[in-house]
Each structure stands twice: as C-alpha cells, then as structure tokens.
C-alpha cells in the first residue's frame, strides 16, 4: 500500500469536496424552497472568485498585502460573500420571481439564460485570460511535511475547515433560528406558510442570499487552493455541485455536504488509482450519479416526496 499516494488523494479529495459541498448547498437550498434548479449558481461561484481576486489586488496583491495575509483573506471572503449574496438576490428578483407561477420549464430556461449572461458578461468585463491568485506567493502560506512523502498546505486545512464551519453555521441557522423555521415552513408548504404570515418573498430572497454567499466562499477557496480562476470556470464546477446535491439527496443540507465530499473523493481517488483516471475522472463521477439513481433515486439522505393525487 502506497500510503503517501493514499493520503495525498484523501487530502485532494477532501479539499475538492469542500468546494463542491459549498456549491451544492446553494443548489439544494434553492431547490428545497422553490423546486428550481438554479443553473446560474455555478456562475455566481465564478463571480465570487473574481471579486476575491480583485479585493486581493486592491489590498496590494499577494506579495505586498497592505494588511496581514489572514486579514486579507478574511476581507476577501466577507466582500465576495456579501457581493454574491446581493447578486443572488438580484437574480431571484429579476429572473425568477416574475416566473414563479409560470410552468416549471420557464424558470429553468431563465436560469440557463442567466448562466450564459453571467459567463459572457465576465468574458466581456474581465477577458478570457486566467487570473492568478498567486496564493503560493502569499505571505504566510506554507506546506507541512508529515511523514516521508506527505504534504498538506495550510490553505488546504483552511479550505476544509471553512467549509465544515460554514456548513455548521448554516445547519444551526436553519434548525435553531426563526428565519430558519420560516425557510423550513416555506419548503414544506409555501401556500400554508404564506397563510401563517410568513413573507415568502423575503424568505426566498434570503435563501438566494445564503446560497450565493456560500458559492462565493467556494470560489475564493478554489482560487486560493488552485491558484487560478477564469470566466468559464463556473460551468463544470456548477455541474459537479449540482451532482453532489443530487447524490446527497436534493433538498437535504447534510446530503449536499456528504454528496460534495463523495464527489471530491471519487474524483481524487479515480485519478490516483483507476486506469485513465486523470483523464476520465468525470466519467467515474457521473457514473456514481447514475448508480446512485439506480440504487437510491432520492439520493443518500433524500426522502421520497409523497404527492397527493
């Protein structure tokens, strides 16, 4: 057994999984409340990565940050999460709310339209070239040597920790707060919740805000861990996040996190161990999705929906 390969792939998988989990949370929350697949979510993640990049530049860049590196990272997260949260609310207000009572295909097409709009706007505004976070030059970023051949960087540790931390905060918010209760009620029965005095519009806007803010955090993590971002990065990441949400059971918050880690680990271990894995990692990921549908159509933690006929 090559333990250095095993632990290397484990850390890679957990790091990737953390990012997918944050994207999947946005998909699952919006689906839980609106039964809408928000295909623009991956592009909100891309916008978050770009906001983080521009904030880092504004703070003097990775080599000469005007504040301490960790404060710079915290500011990047805060501004990008707020910015993308607002973007998510805007998307919901102008692209989805007018179609709330339309046939279900209409908001789906609208979501695809918003996705392409965001992608092309990014291409127009920021160009097609790769933007470099230069994380490896960021003062304070280092790798730890564990055992003979195993390395983990403090950015990887930060990514996994932030992802787990944000998930816990989200879970507490949904289960322990009044707003969370309103979200659960809206998800369960929107009409009944409205009759009980819950402002549905506000709950839906808040859900979009939360989901988009988490996607922004994922985008910054991607930039910090892998160094580079570009305007078309949202499509594949969004697809993986969506797959994670479905594998975990769409609508389930713990399921989205579990699905994210499962997809990340599948991708990493497929690359490391399976024939042609690095080229066909996505094949294994989506094969997992198909197998999951065959064995458990509702996903790992999803529950079957009983429909009144």
């Amino acid at each position: 057994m090559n333990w250095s390969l095993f632990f290397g792939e484990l850390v890679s998988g957990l790091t990737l999984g953390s990012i997918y989990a944050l994207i999947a949370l946005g998909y699952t929350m919006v689906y839980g409340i609106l039964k809408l697949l928000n295909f623009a979510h991956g592009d909100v993640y891309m916008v978050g990565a770009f906001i983080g990049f521009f904030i880092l530049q504004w703070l003097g860049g990775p080599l000469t940050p005007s504040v301490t590196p960790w404060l710079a990272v915290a500011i990047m997260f805060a501004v990008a999460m707020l910015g993308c949260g607002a973007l998510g609310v805007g998307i919901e207000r102008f692209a989805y709310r007018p179609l709330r009572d339309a046939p279900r295909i209409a908001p789906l097409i609208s979501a695809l339209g918003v996705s392409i709009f965001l992608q092309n706007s990014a291409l127009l505004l920021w160009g097609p070239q790769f933007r470099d976070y230069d994380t490896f030059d960021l003062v304070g970023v280092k790798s730890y040597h564990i055992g003979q051949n195993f390395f983990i960087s403090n950015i990887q540790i930060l990514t996994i920790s932030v992802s787990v931390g944000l998930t816990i905060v989200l879970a507490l918010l949904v289960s322990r707060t009044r707003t969370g209760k309103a979200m659960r009620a809206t998800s369960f029965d929107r009409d009944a919740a409205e009759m009980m005095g819950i402002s549905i519009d506000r709950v839906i806007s808040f859900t979009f805000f939360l989901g988009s803010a988490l996607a922004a955090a994922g985008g910054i993590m991607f930039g910090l861990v892998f160094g580079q971002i570009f305007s078309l990065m949202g499509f594949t990441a969004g697809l993986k996040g969506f797959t994670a949400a479905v594998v975990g059971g769409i609508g389930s918050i713990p399921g989205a996190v579990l699905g994210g880690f499962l997809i990340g680990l599948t991708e990493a271990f497929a690359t490391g161990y399976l024939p042609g894995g690095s080229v066909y990692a996505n094949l294994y990921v989506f094969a997992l999705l198909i197998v999951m549908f065959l064995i458990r159509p509702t996903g790992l933690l999803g529950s079957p929906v009983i429909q009144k006929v």
Partner: protein
Amino acid sequence: MKKVVTAAALAAVLAVLATAAWGSTKGSNRSATAATADSALVKCGKTRSIGLLAPFTGPAASIGINQVHWANFYKSTYNRTHKKKIRFVNEDTMLGSANGTAEAVKGAQAVGSNARVLGVVGPAGSNEVKATTGALKGAGLGWVSGSATNTTITLDGTRTGFFFRTVPPDSSQSKSVAAYITGTLKIKRVYIIDDQEAYSTGLADEVQTLLRAKGVTVGRDGVSQQQSDFSSIINKIPRNTQLVYLPWQLPPKGQAFGRQMKSLGRSGTKLMGSDGLFDPLFAGLGNNVYDSFFPLNPADKRVAAFKRIHHATELFGAPSYVAAQVVTGAIDRACKNGTASRAEVRAQIKRTRIAAKASLLGLPVAFDRHGDMIKKPFGIYHSVKGVFVRVA
C-alpha cells in the same frame, strides 16, 4: 380523418422529392461555384480583406486572443506604413467548446462566401484545420495557420497547395526535445502529461515514442485543459521521476502545475514544456524548468512594441503575426495589376520568401511542397533567473 392522413403523406413525399431534387441541383452547382470562387477576379481596391479564424471566445480564448493580438499588431504595423490597407474579417471558432469544430466550419463557410476575402489567417487548432478544409478548399482560399502543428495535416495530401503554416510541425519539436532529454540531461525516467487536445496528444505521442526508443522509462497520463487541480495527478507521479514533460498550450496551467508540484514537495523534479508554455509565467517557476520554442528573438523590437501595446508577455501568438505577414504579402503580389483571384493568392503564398532578418521567427520563411516551412528548427531553452535562455 383518412383524407387528412393521405394528404399529409402525399405532402411529405412531395417535400422529400423536392428536397432531393434541390439537393442534386445544388450539388451540381457546387463544383461550378467552387471553380468560380477559385478563379473569380476581385478588384483589390484600397482595402484588402483577409479572413481571420481564431478562438475569440470559448475555453481556448486565452491563447486565441493572444494570436488575434499578434495578427492585429501586424495589421496596424502594415497599415501605418502602406497606402493600401488590410482589414480582417473576424470569425470566432470557439476552439475547445462543447460543439467541437462546428463553429470553425461555420466561420470558414462565412469567409468562403465573402467574395472580398482573398486569403485566410488561421484557424488555430489542427482539428479545426481538418474540419474547415472542405469549406476553405471548396471556396478556393489559401489559409495559413500560426499554431496548427499536428505532423500529418500537411503530409496527408488533403490540403496541399491550400494550407500552409508558420510553425514547425510536432515531428520537428519532438526530435529536439527527445534529443536534449536523453543526450544532454541524461534523463532515464520521464513522465509525460498531455492536455487531451490534438496538439498536445500528438506531440506527447511522438516524444514518448522517441524516448522509449532510446531506453527511457516513460509514464504517461493526461489532464483536461480546463483542469486547475493537479494535486491528484501529482500524487500519482512516481517519486523517482526525473523529468515531467508537459506539451500544453496554456502557460497559466503550466505555472499552476509547477506551483502545485512545489507545494507537494516535488520541487526537485525537472519540468519541460513545449512551445505553448514558452512564457515568463512558466519560466518563473525556477531553474529546473526547460522549454522548446522556435528561435524567435525575444529581444526583437517588434516583440518589445507588442508587449508595450498589449501589456502581454505571451509569445505563443507570434507565428500568427507571420501568418498575417505571409497572406498580406501574397495578396500584395497578386494584386499588382489591381485585381486578384483566390487561386493567384494561393500561388503567391506558395512562393513566399521572407528573409530571416524580416521574419519575426528568427528564420527565413518559405514553404516546401507540403505547406510546411523549409527551415523548421526548434530551440531548447533553460530558465535562468526566471528568463528562458537558449541552450540548444
């Protein structure tokens, strides 16, 4: 109801017959149209039109825009110093996009049907060259690519006399690379990672074959051009690997790979890139980085002027400057009497002679009977303090 069904069936049969009849008429007209396009004389006028097929958008836009910038740099330089002007008819090929080479074919059809276009610069990818052959050749256009390096596209005879390129083929590059790895660096264990594009896999295959023939142990893998996470594949590279060869097209990806290698404790392994990675981003990874590139002189004043105007460091698109130079020169010569046909322009492309001094590539540009440059040497470069220095 029965009547309606019968009427519908009859209408369908008539529609099929009409379509077939129209198709056969169109087919017989096609060869006539092609012949007309080939020999039709166009009044050259004050502004001559050249088709520019490039990935303006899509996954490969980061390198495509560099090529477009270089081609436009030639255009602006030329237009400043000549009474007759050139203009590009731009067509986006979206190289690497989900619908494959369809956009390139659409673009080729568009420039082919534009009677004012006398020659074409591009397209970028070898697969695109193959896919657009029907449309461009059918329209009688000569086309010059600054980046399609697959060895067979000039040798298979399909587009001889129509297609030319201002980059040496993979076979030339692979020989230089393999010779340097085995002869100078005395490397015994190499790991090759391609990026799944035709350019990359073709070059990787050739280097792999040459290295194995010389007794080198070669591991092989691939990544997607869209991939940014290389940690999993780096973990997989055997620890005793002495050199990783990356025939990639995107310098930022090469830079990301090198940085992730370092963060995973693999800074001792040498890295070697191909012409696509000949860039300060890749050179900046440190002194264990090598690359292969045509003998372009980075100190050429045109390179300095380009960098000043476009704030870009990438030299990958420089052959597109030369491609534009070749097509423009051919049109100038064909237009001496005020009119030119596409066939005349093609003949003039074939007769191109650009002296080494005037050529940005640092070598004379002239084509052999296949459409390849007659002189096609590849230099090997070593990164010294973040700058590539020619060593072979």
